């Protein structure tokens, strides 16, 4: 039985999404964009507008977000049906979608902040949805890392004050030519990095997998994390060349790190989360190399197949009694055939199998990247991460779907839930076809690629190599002397995301200890001592002294009056 709230919002969102898709088609054909300005505040020449910017990019993105979220709502009506307050969950998702809309629609920094803050907060609430310590900690890690981005955005707002307006799209290019916007855009970069979990801030994304799976599917794969990429796309005309290089280095490292980490991971959701991270790194590095439409193209397609991948994972986890460890799985392809088909299609699309949607974006990105004149380091890292993607995907496939069944013998695993299968089935059609459709839409003139044969074939080699390594690593009996235990430092370094979680978690010790010191030694120490207590002490002391005087002989009393008399006599003249 479907929940009523789910039904309403599922139909409403899918309707809206379809309409927005049509609008974006119209805007692509007519090459128009619409700007609506709401006047919020002004004081002399300082104006705050709420800007709604409707171009093909924002409407297309919105239609995708709405489509995925409608599917997720439909899916969670089954997945979350045992929840007591399922409508609370649905309303949270709707609030999330609304803040995403606000973020997408407005290229004004202040009104972006509205959506941006909303995204962080609602995702926080969604991560701590389950009431256990793991999700509590993960939620705070998520929220506070995102808060760094909010603060960076706030700071850049105040720095943008120098340029006279927060409608950055209208003058970004102009200022970039005339002067360096340095610090302002560095803050924007930090904000985007926190949302998209790039390297110094990437520990929150795998941790956020403590959220319910529909949330991971919507929030931590297709929408929230892409908000950072979207912000960078909107700002891409403003970045100077050096900033772009910094962005490139960080995003490449993220891509490589997460691809490597995914090969060590045994948690089903975390593997997918790390793969999201690596794809985000790929989008941002594509962006940093200057082709922002390719990055956007990949963003949309990635959103589709990653959302579906999470939904399939959720379905599998649901059947395995909330067990997420892939070592307990295996042989799922026999038990849940349809889900496995969906999962495989998504995974192959992630690897870039020809004519699935991921192929169109990834292949284009790789080949246009090869045509650039980059140095060897960037080239090698980029290609290696491509290979790693294939590697962990195949390792995951082998572990979950093809190897022996490892779960407890008393189980009831199967493709039972119609609602979940339906919602995944609707998405799978788009996962297959959206690549071609979007490539026709976004690139009316096909890109011209001209490469020597060896460079062209290199990616294919790497993919086959990745498949081979992936299949090999999934074998238990690869080596009876465990290599990972032999090289313990290296393997723990790689599997812990290069110690990033350690860095961000051990950071909280310092403010807390400083706060404790401040509390004990200032508020309850020095300030109390020199504030009230000192006053009390000196008053008691002096009143005692005067009491002593008045208890004394009359002569002394008179003498004091005489002294005071002389004092006033001389002072007053």
């Amino acid at each position: 039985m479907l929940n009523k709230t789910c039904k309403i919002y599922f139909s409403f969102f899918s309707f809206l999404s379809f309409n927005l898709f049509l609008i974006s088609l119209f805007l692509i054909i007519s090459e128009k964009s619409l700007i609506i300005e709401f006047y919020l505040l002004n004081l002399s020449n300082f104006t705050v507008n709420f800007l709604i910017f409707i171009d093909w990019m924002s409407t297309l993105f919105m239609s995708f977000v709405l489509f995925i979220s409608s599917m997720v709502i439909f899916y969670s009506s089954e997945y979350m049906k045992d929840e007591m307050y399922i409508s609370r969950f649905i309303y949270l998702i709707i609030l999330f979608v609304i803040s995403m809309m606000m973020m997408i629609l407005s290229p004004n920094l202040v009104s972006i902040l509205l959506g941006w803050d909303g995204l962080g907060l609602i995702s926080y609430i969604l991560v701590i949805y389950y009431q256990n310590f793991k999700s509590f900690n993960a939620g705070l890690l998520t929220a506070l890392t995102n808060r760094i981005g909010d603060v960076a955005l706030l700071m850049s707002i105040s720095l943008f004050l120098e340029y006279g307006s927060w409608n950055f799209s209208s003058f970004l290019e102009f200022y970039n030519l005339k002067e360096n916007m340095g610090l302002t855009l560095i803050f924007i970069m930090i904000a985007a990095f926190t949302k998209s979990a790039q390297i110094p801030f990437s520990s929150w994304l795998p941790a956020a997998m403590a959220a319910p799976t529909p949330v991971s599917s919507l929030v931590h794969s297709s929408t929230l994390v892409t908000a950072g990429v979207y912000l960078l796309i909107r700002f891409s005309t403003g970045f100077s060349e050096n900033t772009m290089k910094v962005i490139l280095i960080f995003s490449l490292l993220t891509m490589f790190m997460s691809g490597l980490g995914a090969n060590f991971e045994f948690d089903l959701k975390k593997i997918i989360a790390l793969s999201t991270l690596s794809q985000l790194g790929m989008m941002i590095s594509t962006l940093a190399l200057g082709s922002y439409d390719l990055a956007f193209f990949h963003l949309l397609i990635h959103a589709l197949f990653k959302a579906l991948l999470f939904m399939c994972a959720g379905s599998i986890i649901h059947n395995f009694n909330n067990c997420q460890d892939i070592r307990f799985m295996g042989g799922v392809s026999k038990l849940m055939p349809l889900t496995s088909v969906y999962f495989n299609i998504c995974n192959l699309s992630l690897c870039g199998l020809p004519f699935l949607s991921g192929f169109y974006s990834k292949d284009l990105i790789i080949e246009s990247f090869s045509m650039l004149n980059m140095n060897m380091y960037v080239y090698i890292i980029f290609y290696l991460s491509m290979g790693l993607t294939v590697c962990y995907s195949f390792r995951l496939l082998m572990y979950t779907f093809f190897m022996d069944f490892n779960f407890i013998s008393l189980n009831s695993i199967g493709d039972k839930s119609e609602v979940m299968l339906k919602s995944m089935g609707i998405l799978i059609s788009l996962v297959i076809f959206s690549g071609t459709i979007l490539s026709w839409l976004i690139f009316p003139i096909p890109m011209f690629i001209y490469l020597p044969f060896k460079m062209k074939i290199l990616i294919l080699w790497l993919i086959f190599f990745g498949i081979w390594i992936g299949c090999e690593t999934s074998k238990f009996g690869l080596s009876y002397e465990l290599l990972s235990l032999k090289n313990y430092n290296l393997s723990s370094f790689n599997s812990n995301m290069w110690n990033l979680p350690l860095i961000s978690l051990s950071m909280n010790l310092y403010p807390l200890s400083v706060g404790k010191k401040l509390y004990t030694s200032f508020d309850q120490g020095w300030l109390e001592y020199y504030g009230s207590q000192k006053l009390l002490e000196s008053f008691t002391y002096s009143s005692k002294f005067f009491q002593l005087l008045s208890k004394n002989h009359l002569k002394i009393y008179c003498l004091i009056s005489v002294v005071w008399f002389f004092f006033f006599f001389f002072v007053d003249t």
Partner: protein
Amino acid sequence: MMKFLFMMVFLTPLCFFSYWYLSLFLFYLSFLFIFMFNISKDYSFLSYNFGLDLLSYSMVMLSFWICSLMLLASAKIFKKKDYYELFMFNILFLMFSLFMVFSSLNFFIFYLFFEISLIPTFFLIIGWGYQPERISAGKYLLFYTLLASLPMMVGIFFIFKSVNSLDFYFLSLNLDNFLFYLCINMVFFVKMPMYLIHLWLPKAHVEAPISGSMILAGVMLKLGGYGLFRVMKMFLNMGLKINFIFITISLIGSVYMSLICLQQSDIKLLIAYSSVSHMGLVLSGLLTLNLMGMWGSLVLMLGHGLCSSGLFCLANISYERLNSRSLYLNKGLMNFMPTLSMWWFLFCISNMAAPPSLNLLGEVLLINSLIIYSKLTMIMLALFSFFSACYSLFLYSYTQHGLFSSGIYSFTYISNREFLLLVLHWIPLNFLIFKGEIFSVWI
């Protein structure tokens, strides 16, 4: 103006008859006052030493609103028959004196009622507080303010001697004297409270009953801001020279206070420290003396008044049920009060300046004004803004999330009165932002 004064005076007999009627009439009074709103740069409704410009209007509005809500929040006193007649008289008297403070055009009348408003607050704390420590807390409240306010009286006499008038309109003394600056402003710094002289506030908050906490956080702190707005035009030259000292102290203080917030295990203490931290930002924005700082500090004062008062209400709602303010016992409240949990969330995020709340507008404007003042303030502002999110989320998630305390025996659900109380805090907090520019008119 007289009609409000007389209405408050003649409401006095009602104090001794009915709790609900008085509550009703206080709201009636607030709404009468709301309908008087007009956007004007200058003083309006002038009569016999009283008048309102937009600054005074919004502060009077805030104090009427908070006073009415105070009565609504403390129905427990009425139910327990805990001298509720005197309590209501106290609130009415407080309201009266706050009205006089904010609407008087004369500096001396301002000063007089500034002091008088301390007395009902003091009585609230020592009369209806909970622990024996309330006596010392009351003393802290009185003497921190008194110690700094007597120099202000001397300063006022000095102004009268040199300007021959104490009307705010004529305060145009431009005296470059540090001592004079301190004499006049120190009391406002104490009242705000600035870091280093804030000790009275957490103590008073912890010991005060809910009504006392609400009025302290909601209006009494804003008295300092209001006073600074009024007198700062005397210190335009002096302010340029030495305001940076106080800006630095209060900015660093607000970061320190937010670090201290993370250490608290008492909900009320946490909220109290968070209000010190926010008022530090208000103070520093105000002292920059630029347009945006003035605007932002008024907005943040209003926003913070509503928000922290609402947070205290929430703390009190769970205190009345669990008889504890400790974070270790107030846990997992979401499991049996899910609706209240939403309100906790809404107020906590308003406290960390999330959209759409007046706090966000205020903080954006204040950050802008401070960064215009000096780019170096960015470090402190960033830390402040980050840690304010830390403690707000800490407060929310620690109280609402997880396993509830097993010591809870019986429990009553939230009444309509309490929901009304929260709604009436939240609506002005989140809807005034849509016409936020009216707060810039008076500058």
